[in-house]
C-alpha cells in the first residue's frame, strides 16, 4: 500500500539485490557470503539493537545472533519483503528476547481510548517543534513502550514503509498505525512538558 517503486539505479535497491544473492550463496553453505552480509548489515543491526536496548554489549550480541540465525535459516526467505527488512525482523525478535530476559521490557496498552483524547491546543506543534532538542526527544522516546518506540524508529530512522514495519514487528499494518498514533501522542505530551 505504501511501498514506493524503486528503480534499478537506486542504491538501496542495488544493495537489496546484492543481499538476495548473498542469501542464496549462504543457502549453499558459502561462508564468504556470510562475511560480506556481515559487512553490509552489521552496523545497521547494531544501531537498530542499540536503540532498543541502550546497551552496547547486548547490541553486539544481537548482531551476532541475528546474522547466525540468518545463516541458519537463509533458505526460509521467501522474497515477500526486502532482505534487510527480513533480517531486521530477526533482530527485532532477538532484541525483544533480551528485554524480556532482563525484565526491562515496557509493554504497551493498545486498548487506550484514543477517541477520547483531546486535540492539542492551536500552535502546540509549532511551539514544540521550535523548542525541542535532541536530548528531550531521547528522554521522551525512552518513556514509550518498546513496540511503540520501535515503530517510531523504524519509520523515522530506518525510513521503512508501513508494510515493512509490519513485517519487522510481525503484526498487521493497522497495529502499526495504532502504535504510531499512541507514540506520537505520548511524544507530543512529553515534549510539551519538557519545553514549557
Amino acid at each position, binding site marked *: *500500500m*505504501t*511501498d*514506493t517503486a524503486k528503480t534499478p539505479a537506486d542504491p538501496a535497491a542495488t544493495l537489496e539485490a546484492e543481499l538476495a544473492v548473498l*542469501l542464496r550463496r*549462504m*543457502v*549453499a*553453505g558459502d*561462508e564468504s557470503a*556470510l*562475511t560480506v552480509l*556481515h559487512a553490509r548489515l*552489521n*552496523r545497521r543491526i*547494531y*544501531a537498530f539493537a*542499540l*536503540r532498543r536496548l541502550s546497551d*552496547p554489549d547486548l547490541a*553486539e550480541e544481537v*548482531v*551476532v545472533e541475528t*546474522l*547466525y540465525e540468518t*545463516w*541458519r*535459516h*537463509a*533458505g*526460509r526467505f521467501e522474497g515477500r519483503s526486502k532482505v534487510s527488512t527480513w533480517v531486521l525482523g530477526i533482530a527485532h525478535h532477538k532484541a525483544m528476547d533480551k528485554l524480556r530476559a532482563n525484565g526491562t521490557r515496557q509493554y504497551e496498552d493498545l486498548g487506550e481510548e484514543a477517541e477520547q483524547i483531546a*486535540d492539542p491546543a*492551536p*500552535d*502546540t*506543534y*509549532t511551539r*514544540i*517543534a521550535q523548542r*525541542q*532538542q*535532541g536530548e528531550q*526527544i*531521547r528522554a521522551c*522516546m525512552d518513556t514509550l513502550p518498546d513496540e511503540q518506540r520501535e515503530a*517510531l*524508529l523504524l*519509520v*523515522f*530512522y530506518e*525510513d*521503512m*514503509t*508501513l508494510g515493512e514495519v509490519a513485517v519487522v514487528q510481525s503484526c498487521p499494518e493497522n497495529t502499526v*498505525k495504532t502504535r*504510531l*498514533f499512541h507514540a*506520537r501522542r505520548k*511524544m*507530543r505530551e512529553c515534549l510539551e512538558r519538557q519545553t514549557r
Partner: protein
Amino acid sequence: MTELSPDNLRRVRDLLPWYVNGTLATEQHAEVEAMLAQSQDLRAEAEWLAAVRDQLKQKNDAQADGQREAGAEQAGLQTLLGLVRAEKKKQPALMPGRARPGFGERLSQWLGGWMQPVFMVAACLVVVQAVVIGTLLHRAGENGITPAGAGTSTAAGPLLQVVFHETATEAALRAALTGAGVEIVAGPGQLGVYTVRAAPDRADAAMVALRQNPAVESVSRVVP
C-alpha cells in the same frame, strides 16, 4: 479534492509518518498533500514530525557510532564464523538454509536443545536395556529355547556379575561382553547388574578383560 471530514482527517493523520519519511505511494502522497493544503493543524503536525525525524536521525547516528568499541565489528564477525563452523562440525549433513530438515534431525535438535543431561543419560540407559532385552528375546525366538547360554561354549562355565557405567552405550556394552568372551544369562536387574557366563577355562581372563574395559564399573564372580 478530499473532503476535510473527521474520518478523512484521522486517516490522513495516520499516514503522516510515512508522508514525512517519503515512502507513501504516489496516490496517497497526493491525497495527503491535498489535505495539508486545507488544514493548518495538519501542516503543523507534519512539520513537527519532520523535525522529530531530523533530530532522531542525528541523535542515533552519533549514538551508534560513538558507543561501539574499536574492533567490536571484527570480533563479532569472528564469533559469528566460529558459531557457523562449530555447527558444521556438529551437523556436517545439515546445510544452512535447507528448507525443512528431516524428522530425525528435528528430533535430534529438539533433544539437544531441550532435554537436560540427566534425561539424556536416562534415555541412553533405556535404549541399552531395550537392545539387550531385544537381543535376548531374539535369541530365544531363533533357538526356541531360553537364552541362558544354551548351545554355546559357555554353557557350563562360571557366572559373573557385571555393572556398566551409566553412560556406557549399547555398542560399548556389546564390545565389552564379546571382547571378554562372555554371554548374558540374566539382567540387567533393577540396579543395572548383568549376570554373564564365561567359558569354563576363561573365567579369570574374562574378569581381567572386563575390569580393564572403560565401560565396566565392576565385575565379581557369582559364588555357587
